[in-house]
């Protein structure tokens, strides 16, 4: 398929998805809509996370920090500004934090970067707690003026669609190529003239913007927010898990995985709540070991390859058990020895 056709296919799928999500509140119950809301939230978070962290392979655990920054923006300013302005400001502030964070830490790679972003999230949480305590004398914030549920749903839907659109578009631009180049081999990209520092910071800020906007939108659902709730590292962990299992380099992987996990979470929650989290962990391990490309990279070839692999492994085991392997080895050794005399 040509690039143009792919683009059209992607946009059509997105349109269909958006249309279905838009119509959902009309015919489904409040509960299903609320579930869809969480699902859309993770679609937005994981698509934007995958965009930067997938291509460049810089695993960022700072999603919770940006989410929290957005949430606090809403808590502090929603009463004074309008809804759209607050969301935009939440995104903006999160991007600012990302710019500062990125400038300081993006020169470190791999595990250092992951651990550092985690540390920064905790640092921000403790800093906000301390500041709130000492300066304003309170710890949490109560949101008294909240918009209608429908408005929240539409906002998060718009953010999710925007995140996927941005993913689609960025992959086609030089910026997207630069990101992937950094992921493939950073030094080579630098020698080829890519300003890696700028590209990385821009990508990081993009991720942060979405996380901040989503945080700003979701905060109103909880009425009372405090640092522990909105800076909860689990939000970041779940985003990372979903994106990794879905396929960190792919476009539709995060979306697929977000949907699957929302449904899984809800159905398991009613019967076996810990099993949901256990299965999340197990799935992650299995997918990293056997399916590094994620769910979205599943093709017929993958299944065939697994089948062949298993069959070969079973054959090998049988050979070992019956002693055939040993006999073959000995025969080979003897042949080698004999060949010296030729």
């Amino acid at each position, binding site marked *: 398929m040509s690039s143009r056709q792919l683009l059209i296919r992607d946009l059509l799928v997105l349109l269909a998805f958006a249309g279905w999500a838009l119509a959902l509140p009309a015919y489904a119950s409040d509960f299903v809509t609320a579930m869809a809301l969480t699902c859309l939230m993770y679609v937005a978070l994981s698509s934007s996370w995958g965009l930067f962290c997938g291509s460049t392979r810089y695993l960022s655990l700072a999603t919770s920090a940006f989410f929290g920054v957005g949430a606090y923006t809403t808590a502090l300013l929603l009463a004074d500004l309008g809804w759209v302005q607050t969301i935009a400001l939440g995104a903006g502030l999160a991007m600012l934090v990302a710019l500062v964070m990125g400038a300081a830490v993006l020169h470190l790679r791999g*595990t*250092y970067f*992951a651990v*550092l972003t985690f*540390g920064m999230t905790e640092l921000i949480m403790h800093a906000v707690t301390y500041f709130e305590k000492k300066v304003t004398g309170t710890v949490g914030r109560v949101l008294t003026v909240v918009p209608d549920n429908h408005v929240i749903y539409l906002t998060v839907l718009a953010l999710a669609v925007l995140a996927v659109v941005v993913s689609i578009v960025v992959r086609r631009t030089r910026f997207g190529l630069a990101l992937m180049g950094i992921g493939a081999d950073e030094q080579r990209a630098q020698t080829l003239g890519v300003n890696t520092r700028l590209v990385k910071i821009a990508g990081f800020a993009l991720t942060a913007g979405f996380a901040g906007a989503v945080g700003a939108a979701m905060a109103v659902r909880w009425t009372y927010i405090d640092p522990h709730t909105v800076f909860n590292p689990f939000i970041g962990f779940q985003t990372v898990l979903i994106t990794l299992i879905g396929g960190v380099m792919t476009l539709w992987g995060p979306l697929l995985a977000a949907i699957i996990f929302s449904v899984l979470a809800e159905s398991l929650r009613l019967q076996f709540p*810990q099993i949901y989290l256990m299965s999340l*962990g197990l799935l*992650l391990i299995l997918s*990293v070991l056997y399916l*590094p490309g994620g769910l979205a990279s599943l093709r017929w070839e993958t299944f065939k390859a697994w089948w062949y692999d298993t069959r070969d492994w079973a054959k090998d085991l049988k050979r070992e058990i019956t002693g055939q392997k040993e006999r073959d080895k000995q025969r080979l050794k003897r042949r080698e020895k004999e060949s010296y005399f030729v």
Partner: protein
Amino acid sequence: MSATAWLELIASGLITGGIYALIALGLNLQYGLMRILNIAHGEFLMLGAYLTWLAHTQLALSPLVMVPLSFAAMMVLGVAIHFLCFRRLTATSPNLDVFEARGLMVAFGLMFLVQNLVSWQWGGDLRGYDYLTEPVKLGEAQFAANKLLVLGLALLFSGALIVLMRQTLLGKGVRALMQSPVGAQLMGIDTKTLHPLIFGIGLGLSGVAGALLSMAYTITPYMGQPYTVTALIVITLGGFGSMGGALIGGLMLGVIEAFGMHFTNPSLKALLSYAVFIAVLILRPEGLLTRKTRKA
């Protein structure tokens, strides 16, 4: 502040630091040797604590007996986990960066798995038991008996590990592998047996830390994570891969925290720990106590 008060403060810092050092040593072994950043480390600590609690309340086994037992149990578990999860990664990863990233993700998954397995099995209630809580007087200063025990055992195990690393052939092999994986293999050092063994020892140490901690603190399925984070801070301070650095870094962190809590308040302590952590990672990623030989 009187001399006794200073002594008590430093000592309580050392006690906490001893635990930190023990956990950090395990994590360090795994990262330094195999470049596996096992962020599920704290969960095995928690597992060790639960096993000790179970043994104490159900079978009336003394926690002291459980210390070597949890070491053994966690070590076996570690070997099994390495075999199941990490061996395949070594085979299939194209380069070190990818291996590190994938190792991190697998550890992530393990963290969720273990935490929720325990929560499922034993519930989220707080558990605890009373063991050797009578205070012991050393001169003017006063400490709980179990805390002194914890310090003693932590130092003992750390010391044993360092001796192992320096004096035995096994230790020399490990250090050789750390310095140059290819060169060591050329010399005939077998990574296939060494890697799982060391991974197991790392987890065993965390099990011991858990057993020691269970004597003095309440245990919940979620107690592991803060210790993982602290261990990360310690090995950052001490330098990735340096045993002595982890030991000294751990003790130092404990004492710094104690002073911080005393002179400011505990809320600030958390802030300070993280600020120090990030500062060190940014400014001197190879650690405060190592020479500038390793590249970040």
